[in-house]
């Protein structure tokens, strides 16, 4: 008998359970509560610090209504996204983000004033998420911190009816019976330590798949960001002022139109070290001062290593951000962000962002707009659905839907070490030659290895004594599963589109101008959407 099963469980009922307490989760919780729903929000870490936004600062895709500004904003990234973004969804997100920024201001976020008018271009992560925690708490949402979810609960019809998890600092299980569940667990960066992303291990994607959910755009998961070679701060906007060089000091000409090319840098990294220096601001002290003030965390690893990035070059690397800044996730079936599973909604990076970004990263600003908009719709949709169920919602017989990494078949004889499985997944996802420059041969080899890892997480974990052991085993399974959907989708898309680069199919193919859906556990499937 394991420790966590012997402690008295925390048992709660709510109309809506939100899993994840980043921007999308807090917007979902607030929106559901505003519709009159009772809401529980469970975060693996701490609502207010978990996820990629909290330690960061982000622009927001906020464009005033009227004139041509929105049409221009939509057109700007269409080609980058491989023409997969959807104009209706972009319009909805621009409209909702504009209104939500009004709400953020009314809640007391101190947007800067330029004379009289507020300037609402971006949000400082730590302050934004601290505010959202307070807003959610004031709305009456019950927040469970340090409480990773482990599995969804489903009723006899396969409808989602809550979730179960652990209070990891108390070694205590929790169960929330709910009329609807919102997955807002973020994307998956495969524990690369890219800024703020190690909470984002694909858990919500695994939960959704176990309940029968589907994904879209999982091939657009090859997002690599520049960071210093020894640190993990993946703030990249300032590199538009950089010159990237190889060991010999030759300019790689990696920056064009204010954006760096990950593939140019990636190819150079395969041949040796690559360096960056913010040389373009070397003679411009006013720019230096602005850059330094605008994004203190960019300079933090440099300052603490005694490097002046304007005067000295420093070694850089590419760090995988996976679907966090990439774009694939749970497939949505309507404007309320419902998934293909009754009772299950998805928001933020856990849901596919192709609808507004196509196959490319939105950078911080589209992603922030998507999180607050999709979070709002998912919260409202979940609230309406749950309230419609009435008392029946909590009267259902439910069972846990969780499998791999959590619950092994009774005849399972093999044991797995979660840390070894995680290292195995990273060996397939981190190398540039496998993930940035994809080929049929490379992908087939990786998929074979990942299939082997999936078999092993079907056994028992070597340790299940503590809540953290159980969490780790489950995360290992989620990482393997997410990697398999990503690479199966990458294999099927035989072209280069958006961030998905096939070295063996370097051109865009008009015949593949469609979304790709995927899913499945033991047998992974991919089909044109």
């Amino acid at each position, binding site marked *: 008998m394991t420790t966590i099963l012997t402690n008295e469980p925390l048992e709660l009922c709510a109309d809506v359970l939100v899993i994840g307490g980043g921007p999308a989760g807090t917007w979902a919780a607030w929106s559901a509560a505003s519709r009159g729903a009772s809401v529980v929000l469970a975060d693996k870490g701490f609502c207010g610090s978990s996820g990629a936004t909290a330690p960061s600062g982000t622009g927001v895709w906020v464009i005033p209504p009227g004139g041509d500004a929105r049409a221009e904003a939509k057109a700007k990234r269409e080609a980058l996204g491989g023409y997969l973004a959807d104009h209706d969804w972009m319009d909805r997100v621009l409209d909702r983000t504009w209104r939500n920024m009004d709400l953020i201001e009314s809640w007391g976020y*101190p947007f*800067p004033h330029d004379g009289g008018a507020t300037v609402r271009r971006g949000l400082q992560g730590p302050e934004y998420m601290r505010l959202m925690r307070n807003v959610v708490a004031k709305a009456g949402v019950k927040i469970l*911190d340090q409480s990773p979810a482990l599995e969804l609960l489903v009723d006899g019809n396969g409808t989602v009816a809550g979730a179960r998890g652990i209070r990891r600092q108390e070694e205590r299980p929790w169960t929330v019976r709910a009329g609807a569940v919102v997955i807002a667990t973020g994307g998956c960066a495969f524990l690369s*330590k890219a800024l*703020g992303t190690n909470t984002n291990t694909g858990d919500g994607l695994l939960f959704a798949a176990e309940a029968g959910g589907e994904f879209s755009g999982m091939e657009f998961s090859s997002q690599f960001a520049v960071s210093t070679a020894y640190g993990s*701060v993946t703030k990249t906007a300032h590199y538009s002022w950089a010159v990237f060089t190889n060991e010999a000091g030759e300019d790689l000409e990696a920056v064009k139109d204010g954006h760096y090319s990950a593939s140019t840098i990636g190819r150079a990294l395969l041949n040796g070290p690559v360096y960056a220096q913010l040389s373009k601001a070397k003679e411009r002290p006013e720019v230096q001062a602005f850059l330094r003030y605008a994004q203190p965390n960019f300079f933090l690893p440099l300052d603490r290593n005694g490097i002046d990035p304007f005067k000295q070059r420093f070694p850089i690397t590419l760090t995988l951000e996976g679907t966090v800044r990439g774009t694939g996730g749970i497939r949505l079936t309507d404007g309320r962000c419902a998934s293909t599973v009754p009772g299950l909604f998805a928001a933020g990076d856990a849901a596919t962002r192709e609808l507004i970004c196509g196959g490319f990263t939105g950078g911080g600003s589209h992603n922030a707009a998507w999180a607050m908009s999709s979070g709002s719709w998912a919260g409202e949709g979940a609230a309406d659905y749950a309230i419609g169920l009435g008392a029946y919602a909590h009267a259902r017989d439910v069972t846990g839907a969780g499998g791999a990494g959590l619950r092994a078949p009774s005849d399972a004889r093999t044991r797995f070490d979660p840390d070894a499985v995680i290292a195995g997944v990273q060996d397939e996802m981190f190398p540039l030659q496998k993930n940035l420059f994809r080929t049929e041969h490379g992908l087939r080899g990786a998929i074979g290895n990942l299939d082997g890892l999936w078999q092993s997480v079907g056994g028992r974990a070597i340790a299940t004594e503590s809540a953290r052991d159980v969490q780790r085993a489950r995360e290992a399974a989620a990482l393997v599963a997410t990697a398999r959907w990503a690479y199966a989708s990458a294999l099927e898309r035989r072209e280069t589109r958006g961030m998905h680069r096939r070295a063996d199919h370097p051109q865009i193919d008009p015949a593949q101008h469609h979304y790709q859906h995927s899913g499945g556990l033991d047998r992974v499937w991919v089909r044109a959407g």
Partner: protein
Amino acid sequence: MIELLVRDACIGCDICVRVCPTDVFDATPGGAPEIARQEDCHTCMICELHCPVDALYVSPRGEPDPSVDEAAIVASGVLGSYQRALGWKRGMPGGADDDPGVLIAFKRPPDPSDKVRTQLYEVSMRTYIDVGPNA
């Protein structure tokens, strides 16, 4: 990753235990928390930001850094520097309206009564504006 918890400065409030998104710290009865799972740290700096007494130091490296020396770090003045750069004080936000980035963008100096930002503003001006690239 997290490298130091300066025990002489720590007041045992356990805020870092509560807010760490990757659950790196363990509370101890009546004392300073322990860095129990350093390997899980993802260098997000949240603990430094929320610490009310600047008792934490996060190294910029993604791997453990055995060269970190407590006495040298305390003497360097780096403790709390990220809070100050973001305009936070004693673990509380300072208000994004006075973000240093905003002050520069709008070309206005900080409120002179805000000594921390005034100092930061002046230091930065000295380093990056008054002194030429070859100095």
